[in-house]
């Protein structure tokens, strides 16, 4: 008995020269099925398939990744011409399981250069990423032993990097060997294609969707540049994630996590190990009065005693791990493959930004795309955008704000002139889950606001049913006529020029 009767009889019906996009309401995560009418029938491109476990329960009507993939199978007949993985995060990948995709035929697999095994920078990034996860795991277990809420924040970030579909796992459980991960999703996809996946570099060439003549694909990111992905501004000497060395500096945070206590920053004669303070009577009495061990003394209710517990700092240094976790998450976001699909030369553009953040955005217009009939300028290309898949669930810095005349790509560059009236945005986010469970501000109210100003009511968000408003402007009526909404997905049709 199908749970969503309405959602099981609709097919994707792209118009000639246009596109049909199905945005799955998979939860807090991305899953988009694009369909074009090619020379020999419909061609399907699947971009990502993942969700944050638990977020699907916060939708108006609960869905599941099983329902989503079953629908993809029905609509495509189990044949996907291209599968695109934007970046290696749980909420873009964990839907790709062996079981769900059994029997699927996949023509081509597109990754960003970050997945390339022959790219030196990519290999170095991977090594560093593993090191960071190890460090985080060590910091997290110490914080958890102290009952710190930071531990749970780190768990949620580590879950993004490692993957899987179980809710509420701790970092230790996530790191345990043999669990299903982002890596196994990628391996499953690789096993389904002939040959190697295509690892795309931005600005190098105009990519074609096999079987469709009129669609050209422009890869705008991720930049092949460590600093741009890390989004490092020139801020003093602070360079986190750190430079490529396999050995950790002795006095670093990570070295301490590894338990290398012997590397105190001063000569041994000045230092006394904290577990041996008791050996000197003088020191021990000073320590008990001014810092304290165990219980505090309390002789005067009105005065905080010198050895009050709340003033001790055993675990404060571990909170650096929190920042490390955030930096790692943002780094992976910034490694997103960003694709602009152009419907016919000079035609409308669909922009899929993955989870690109500022460093990635800022590099989009670094170069023109070479083309025999005149190079394609990115600013001009983005001006033709009519559909924008909002980056990173509408988070901070994943949709840059700015003005048309600014020299960096931003929201004002998108959907200009005659395309402004049609410009629409898709926000793959479940706000209730993000705020209440993860503590993440997705989508950021100021970005929601900016999108609303830019698109009017033409914003489609995973957790929000479309209000069918028969009245309204011509543009709005046109938008509604091209949109369908079910509990499992939204369909959106883009007509050719």
């Amino acid at each position, binding site marked *: 008995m199908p749970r969503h009767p309405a959602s099981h009889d609709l097919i994707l019906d792209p118009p000639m020269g246009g596109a049909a996009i199905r945005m799955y309401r998979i939860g807090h995560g991305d899953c988009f099925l694009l369909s074009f009418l090619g020379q020999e029938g419909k061609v399907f491109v699947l971009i990502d398939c993942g969700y944050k476990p638990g977020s699907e329960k916060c939708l108006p009507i609960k869905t599941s990744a099983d329902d989503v993939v079953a629908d993809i199978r029905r609509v495509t007949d189990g044949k996907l011409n291209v599968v695109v993985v934007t970046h290696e995060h749980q909420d873009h990948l964990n839907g790709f399981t062996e079981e769900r995709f059994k029997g699927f035929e996949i023509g081509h697999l597109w990754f960003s250069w970050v997945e390339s095994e022959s790219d030196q920078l990519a290999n170095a990034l991977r090594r560093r990423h593993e090191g960071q996860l190890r460090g985080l795991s060590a910091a997290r277990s110490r914080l958890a032993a102290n009952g710190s809420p930071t531990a749970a924040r780190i768990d949620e970030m580590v879950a993004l990097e490692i993957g899987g579909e179980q809710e509420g796992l701790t970092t230790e459980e996530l790191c345990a060997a043999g669990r299903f991960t982002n890596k196994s999703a990628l391996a499953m996809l690789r096993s389904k294609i002939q040959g190697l996946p295509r690892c795309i570099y931005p600005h190098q060439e105009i990519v074609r969707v096999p079987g469709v003549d009129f669609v050209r694909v422009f890869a705008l990111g991720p930049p092949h540049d460590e600093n741009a992905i890390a989004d490092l501004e020139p801020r003093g000497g602070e360079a986190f994630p750190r430079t490529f060395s396999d050995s950790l500096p002795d006095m670093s945070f990570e070295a301490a996590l590894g338990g290398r206590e012997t590397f105190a920053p*001063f000569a041994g004669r000045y230092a006394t190990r904290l577990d041996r303070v008791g050996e000197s009577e003088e020191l021990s009495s000073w*320590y008990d009065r001014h810092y304290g061990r165990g219980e505090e003394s309390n002789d005067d209710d009105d005065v905080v005693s010198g050895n009050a517990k*709340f003033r001790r700092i055993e*675990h404060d*240094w571990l*909170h650096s791990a929190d920042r490390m976790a*955030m930096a790692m998450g943002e780094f992976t976001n910034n490694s997103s493959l960003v694709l602009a699909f152009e419907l016919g030369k000079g035609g409308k553009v669909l922009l899929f930004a993955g989870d690109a953040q500022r460093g990635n955005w800022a590099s989009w217009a670094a170069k023109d795309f070479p083309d025999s009939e005149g190079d394609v300028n990115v600013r001009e290309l983005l001006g033709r955008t009519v559909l924008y898949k909002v980056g990173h669930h509408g*988070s901070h810095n994943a949709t840059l704000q700015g003005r048309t005349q600014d020299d960096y790509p931003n929201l004002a560059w998108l959907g200009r002139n005659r395309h402004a009236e049609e410009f629409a945005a898709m926000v793959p986010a479940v706000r209730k889950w993000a705020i209440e469970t993860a503590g993440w*501000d997705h989508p950021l109210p*100021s970005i929601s606001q900016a999108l609303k100003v830019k698109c009017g009511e033409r914003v489609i968000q995973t957790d929000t049913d479309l209000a069918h408003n028969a009245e309204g402007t011509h543009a709005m009526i046109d938008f509604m006529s091209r949109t369908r909404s079910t509990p499992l997905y939204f369909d959106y049709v883009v007509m050719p020029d």
Partner: protein
Amino acid sequence: MEREFVAPPVSRRLQIFSFDPGLAGQFENAGIGELTVNVPWEGLEPGPVGEYIEVVDVDPASGVMYRPVNLDNPMLLAQDGLPPSETNPQFHQQMVYAVAMATIGHFERALGRPALWASREYTEEGKRYESYIQRLRIYPHALREQNAYYSPDKKALLFGYFPVERKDKFNSPGTVVFTCLSHDIIAHETTHALLDGVHPRFNRSVNPDVLAFHEAFADIVALFQHFSYPGVLRDQISRTRGDLVGDNLLAQLAQQFGRASGRGGALRDALGKRDKETGVWMRRAPNTNELDTVLEPHDRGSILVAAVFGAFTKVYRARTVDLYRIATQGTGVLPEGEIHPDLAKRLADEAARAALYVLQMCIRALDYCPPVGITFGDYLRAIVTADFDVNPEDEAGFRLAFVESFREWGIHPRAMRSMSIDSLLWPTGDESMSEVGLGGNLDLSTIFGSAHDTDEVAYSSGTRKAASYVDRLLPWTLESDRRKSWEGMEDSARQMWGWLVNGEGRKYAKAAGLVLDEDPKRRTIFKPPKGKVGLAVEVHSVRRAVRKTAKGGTIDCLVVEVTQRRRGYYDADEQRRKDLGEEEIKSGDNGNFRFRAGCTLIIESDSLHLRRVIRTATPIDDNDELERLRIFLTRGVKPPNAYDPGTRIIYSREPFALLHREGD
């Protein structure tokens, strides 16, 4: 027994790095990299642990503690403490102590009272208590991170250290940088703690200026404290003879001080930067529009730093122009070669004197700020009014310089008709009464001497656990015992509360911007506990200030801060329903955020004259202001990263830990 005839020393001399070890290690700085400062004499336990500060050197990441230095050791007393050293942690303990004490000294001088740290606040069985924190704790090696911060929760400064990972002219990879060895970082963090002691509610961001103010103020103090050391400037001025007339040199110097050891803060680019192509250092030109677009606390704070620095350079220039004329026979063109050492000394003296005065003005203004929600414009009014009250004539033109410089940076108070000095002064008691249409004279004689009804139930502010209180507000004596003056603050607050809510003061409430009676359309305003009528009023602190005037007299003032609280909800409709009573406010419902309003009263205790009334922008019943706060909190606060809400910094127990990381 000759000891009895020897007076105790006035000060203790201690050596410090004058910038940080990085700058001290550069050849060109030979001779000025180190400095000996005088800090007020006090007997010290090992640590050092004194009256105000306790340095506790545990390093949990390394699993060790470093032995506390004993500065009362005769060997150390005889040689101005330990010599500057990066590799001896005991020197680190000495340096944080010395710089923090110097900063405290500036505060005490400017505010005219002993410095107190913010109280420890806690709740037990629904009742709010406060307890006394005698000493600010300093952990010189608490973190392995390029960060240093004041923890309002622990009342402690935590300094980090980190290995250098890049290789350039100034850095060798693998060496360790200690944030606790940077003069400006220590002064900056100590200032956060001192400011928190005066204004605990300034940690809560209710408009774009509040956190920016905290950062900027800490940088201003660090900067001008640095300038006030004799010697540091002289050397620099004499060796850089080039652009002495202009103001480039001082700004550039100021910035170098701040840049040292990497944590820039608001100062990083506050005053100027090097042109990427030409390599020439350019002063940042005033821009009246920046304030409208810059919201990030450090960047915004840098505007305030630049404005204050601009005022300083205006005064400095005016006061040195005669020296240039004398030195150049009126041509204004200096001859080739080194400048005369006497001229260098005089210029440095003028700069140091102006710096000290600006520093005092900036600190003194703290008593003239509204109790919550400070804006840069309020701060300008505070600076001008506080200075006016001690020095009505302003012969050197400091006030005018401040007003002009702030105007050039686009800083002006909300809803001001004019930027003239007299219109910037906060209103006096009489003016505030006539503004709200209250006639007659305010009789303050009832404040002192008689007991006021301090209804124990309705008084909802935090209290001491001990039950004995002084039952009347007493005229003041200069109380140097800090614990007693802390207790006195609470006793006075109770009496002031009784006078304001149950006594004569009630008539005056409206002029002070307070709302005492319930309003059926604004039910979200906090009420006193247990069914008492009226609205809750909290008297936060009654501080005393004794100030020297320019004429040599003293003014003895009470600074009283009064606030009211209201529940705010992110959902405007929920707000409306709860305000109108359509939806019940259940017990324990404290809203999504807190809206506060109130006033600071400055009362001259000798003459019983209400000298100044400093109200927040609106009273607590103003719905527009509440709406503005809601919009600010939901949209205007910039998040630190792609995951955290911007409000995390606001509600964090460690706002400065997050803020300083973000600013790096």
